[in-house]
C-alpha cells in the first residue's frame, strides 16, 4: 500500500468517525482527570448500580436459598404490606416532618454559621469556632445520646436543674411527645451544622473580594454586604444542596431516631427506616425492606426532578 493510499484511507476513516475520534482525543488529552474520575465511577458501579439488579427482591417472596431470581414473583404484594401497615400514614408523616424540619432548621443555621465564620476577622477565633462546630459531627449517636441524657434527663439533667431552680417542673424531654421532635431536630442541627457549613464556606471563599471592596467604598455596611453580595453569591450552592437533600427526603436519620426513641414517643418518633428495621430486617422480610427502599428511592428521584425543574424556572439555577 502506497503512502498516498494510506493517507487517503486515514482521511476517510477520520471523516467516517469524527465524533469517536474527537472523544478519544478529548479523553487522551484529559486522561489524568478521567483516570481520577474512574475511581468513584467504579465505586458507583459496584456499590450502587450492580445492586440495582437485586431490587427485584421487592417484587418477590425472597428466599435466600432460592436466590434472587429463584424466589417466587409476587408482584406488588410487598408494597401492599407497607401501604396497608396500621401506621403507614404516621410513618410517612413523621419521616417527612423530620426531613423537612431538619432542612428548615439545619440549612439556614449552616448558612448563618458559614457567613459568621467567613466574616470573622480574628483568625484565632475563627479556627476555634470552626473546630468546635465540626467536632460533634465526629461523635456517634450513641455518644450523643449520653450527652443528651446528661443535659435533658428529668431527674438530674442540667437543663431540668435550671428549670427546677427557676421554680418550674422537670420535663422529660426524651419521653414527651411534645418535646421529642424538637430534641431530634435541634440535636441534629447541633451535630451537623458545622459539617454542613463547609460547603457554604467553600462557596464564600470563591466570591471575588473586589466586590466587597467596591461595596465598602460605596458605604455598604456589613449587613448590606451580606444581603447583596454574600447571599446571592452562594445561592447556586444553596439551591444545589437543597435539591440534593430533597432526594433523600424520606431518609430522616435512622441512627439518630433509633438511639433516641422509645415506646413513649413512638407516635412522633417512628419513621419509615425504624419500621423497616423492625418489620423488615428483624423479621427477615427482606422483600418488604427492599420494597420500601425502592419506594423511597423512586419518591426521592421524583422530588429531585421536580425541584430541579422548579428551580430552573424560578431562579435559573439547577443541577442539570
Amino acid at each position, binding site marked *: 500500500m502506497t503512502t498516498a493510499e494510506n493517507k487517503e484511507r486515514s482521511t476517510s476513516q477520520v471523516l467516517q468517525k469524527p465524533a469517536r475520534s474527537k472523544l478519544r482525543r478529548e479523553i487522551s488529552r484529559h486522561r489524568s482527570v478521567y483516570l481520577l474520575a474512574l475511581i468513584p465511577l467504579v465505586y458507583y458501579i459496584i456499590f450502587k448500580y450492580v445492586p440495582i439488579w437485586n431490587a427485584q427482591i421487592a417484587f418477590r417472596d425472597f428466599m435466600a436459598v432460592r436466590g434472587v431470581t429463584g424466589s417466587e414473583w409476587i408482584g406488588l404484594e410487598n408494597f401492599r404490606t407497607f401501604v396497608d401497615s396500621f401506621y403507614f400514614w404516621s410513618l410517612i408523616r413523621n419521616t417527612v416532618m423530620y426531613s423537612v424540619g431538619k432542612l428548615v432548621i439545619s440549612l439556614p443555621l449552616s448558612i448563618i454559621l458559614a457567613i459568621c465564620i467567613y466574616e470573622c476577622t480574628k483568625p484565632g477565633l475563627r479556627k476555634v469556632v470552626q473546630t468546635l462546630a465540626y467536632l460533634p459531627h465526629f461523635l456517634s449517636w450513641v455518644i450523643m445520646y449520653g450527652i443528651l441524657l446528661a443535659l435533658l434527663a428529668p*431527674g438530674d439533667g442540667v437543663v431540668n436543674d435550671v428549670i427546677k431552680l427557676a421554680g418550674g417542673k422537670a420535663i422529660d424531654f426524651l*419521653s414527651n411527645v411534645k418535646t421529642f421532635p424538637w430534641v431530634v431536630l435541634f440535636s441534629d442541627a447541633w451535630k451537623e451544622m458545622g459539617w454542613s457549613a463547609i460547603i457554604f464556606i467553600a462557596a464564600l471563599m470563591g466570591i471575588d473580594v473586589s466586590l466587597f471592596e467596591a461595596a465598602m467604598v460605596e458605604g455598604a455596611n456589613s449587613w448590606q454586604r451580606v444581603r447583596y453580595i454574600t447571599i446571592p453569591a452562594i445561592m447556586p450552592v444553596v439551591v444545589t444542596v437543597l435539591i440534593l437533600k430533597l432526594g433523600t427526603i424520606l431518609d430522616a436519620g435512622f441512627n439518630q431516631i433509633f438511639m433516641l426513641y422509645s*415506646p413513649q414517643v413512638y407516635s412522633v418518633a417512628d419513621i419509615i427506616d425504624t419500621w423497616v428495621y423492625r418489620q423488615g430486617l428483624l*423479621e427477615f422480610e427482606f422483600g418488604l425492606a427492599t420494597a420500601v427502599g425502592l419506594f423511597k428511592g423512586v419518591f426521592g428521584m421524583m422530588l429531585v426532578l421536580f425541584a430541579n425543574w422548579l428551580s430552573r424556572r424560578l431562579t435559573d439555577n439547577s443541577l442539570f
Partner: protein
Amino acid sequence: MRKLKSILLVVMAVLMALPVFAGGSKDTAKAAGTPDDPVTIDLWFGAAVTEAGMIPDDWVGYDIIREKLGIDLKLTMLPSNESDQDVRIQAAGAANELPDLFMVRRPVLTNLVKQGLVAQVDDCFEKMPVRTAQQYDASSIAHTTINGHVYGFASPGAIAKNEGLLVRKDWLDKLGLEIPTTLDEFIEVARAFTFDDPDGNGRDDTYGYGAFVETDATLKGYPGSRLWPIMGAFGVEGLWSFDSETAGLSIYKPEFYDFMVTLKAMCDEGLIDPNWLSYKKDDFRAAWKQGRFGMMYEQNAAYAATANYAPFDKNFPDGEWIVIDAITGPEGHAAIGAYDMNYRIYAVSQKAVDAGKLDKICELLEWMSSDEGYYLLGWGQEGVNYVLDENGIPVAGDLGDNAFTGSKGQVVTQLRNMVFYNGDVELASRYPTYVTEVSGKTMSALTTLREMQAKKWTSAVGSGTMPTPNADVQRYYDQSLAEFLTGAKELTPANWQAFLDQFNKIGGEAWNQAGIAKMTEDGLIR
C-alpha cells in the same frame, strides 16, 4: 505522574476485585478430616467478654483441635448486642452465607428455618453422649424444636431466677422502717425514700424505686422486667400467663389494668426515679451506684460481683442492699418475676450439612464437653491461666494478667459459654467470695444468687418458644401502655377497653390465639 497513575490503577483493580472476594472462600474439595487434611469449620460465637478481644491466633486450642479432631477451626466473634447479633446473622442468611456453626436467638432461628437455611440436627444427640447428658435435656431440645424437628443445640444460658428485689437496708434503718412485705408497705417505703432524705445529705435527690425499660417479645412485655416485683403483686408478671384459667397474654387480665393504675400513681407521685423511661441499662446501673434510689430489681452478678459492687462500696461504705421477699398485692398475689429457662442456641447451617460437615461439628461439640475441652475453653491451661484450689475449683491464684480473670487470660476463655452449663464448679469459680476493698464487707454473688432463687417466682417456662407479633402490633402494645403511663392517654376503664379493642383488631387477638394454641400444643398450660 506515572507513579500516581500506577497507584490509581492498583486502587481501581482492588476495588473491582472486591466483589469477587465478598462471598468468602469456598471449599473446593471435601477434606479428609485428618490433621494433614483438616475440615474447615467456620464458627460464629458469642464471646464471654466481648470487650476483652478476640482469641489470639496462637491459641493452643487451635492446634489441639486440628491434631485430635482434624478440624481447622475458624472463629468469628459476634457483636455483644443482641440486635446487632440478629442483624449480622440475618444479613448472612439473606446472602446464603451463614457459617457452619453459629449462635442465634430463637426468633431469628425461626426465620432462618422458614427460609430453609438451617439444618435439622435430630440425629446428632446420640453422637454426642457426654455433651447431651451435660447440656441437652428434654426442655432444651424442645426449645429448638420447630414443626417436629430439632434445629439447633440449646445449651443452658443465663441462670434462671438470677434476679431479685433489693432494698437499701441502711436507708430503712435510718428512717426506722421495716422491710416491706405488702404492696401498701412497699409504696410507703418508696414514699419515705423519696421525701424523707434517707441519705441525710439535705437534698431532695433520692427516689423510692429505680428501673429502666427492659423488654423482649416473648417474656418481658412492656413496661418490662424491672417492674416485675410490682406486677407480681397483681399476678401479671410475664408477657404470657400459662395458668389454665387465664392462659394467654397477661394484658387481658383485669389485674393488668389495676397494676397500670398503681404504677401510674407511683410515677405521678414521683416515687420512681423519673429517668426510668430514658435510662438504658448502663445508666440505671450507674444510678444505683450513685445512691439515687433505695429499691430496685437487679441481677445477682450485676449487683454483687466484685467489679460491679466496688463503685457502690466506694461511694457508700455504710450502704447495704438486701434481697427481700416478693411483696404481696391486694388479692394476695406475690412474685419476684416470671422465669423461663434460658438457652444459648448454636445452629448448623444447611450449607455445612450439604458440605458433609455435620459429623465433624458433632465431634467438635462432644470434645468441647470432654474434660480436656471443658477446662481448656472454660478456664484456659492449668498453671498458665488457672490453678485448682483445695476443693478442685479453678481459681486465678497468683497468675496475674494471664489468669482467666485477667486481661490476657480472658481472651483465651472467650469460648467458655459454649461449654459452661451452670454446674457447681463453674458457679464456685465464677462467683468467689470476696471482701470489699473500702467497707470490708464479705460478699458473694453466689450467695446472692441462691437467695434470689429461693424467693417466690412464677414459672413461664416455654415463653421463649411463643409466637411473636408483627412490628405494628408490638408497637401498638408498647406505645399504648407507655402513653397511659406518661399521661399522653388518660388511664380510665373506658380508654383501657378501647385500647384492648383496637389491639385485638390490628392483630393482638390473633397473636393471643396463636399463643394459646402453641401452649396447648406444647403442653405448657398449668
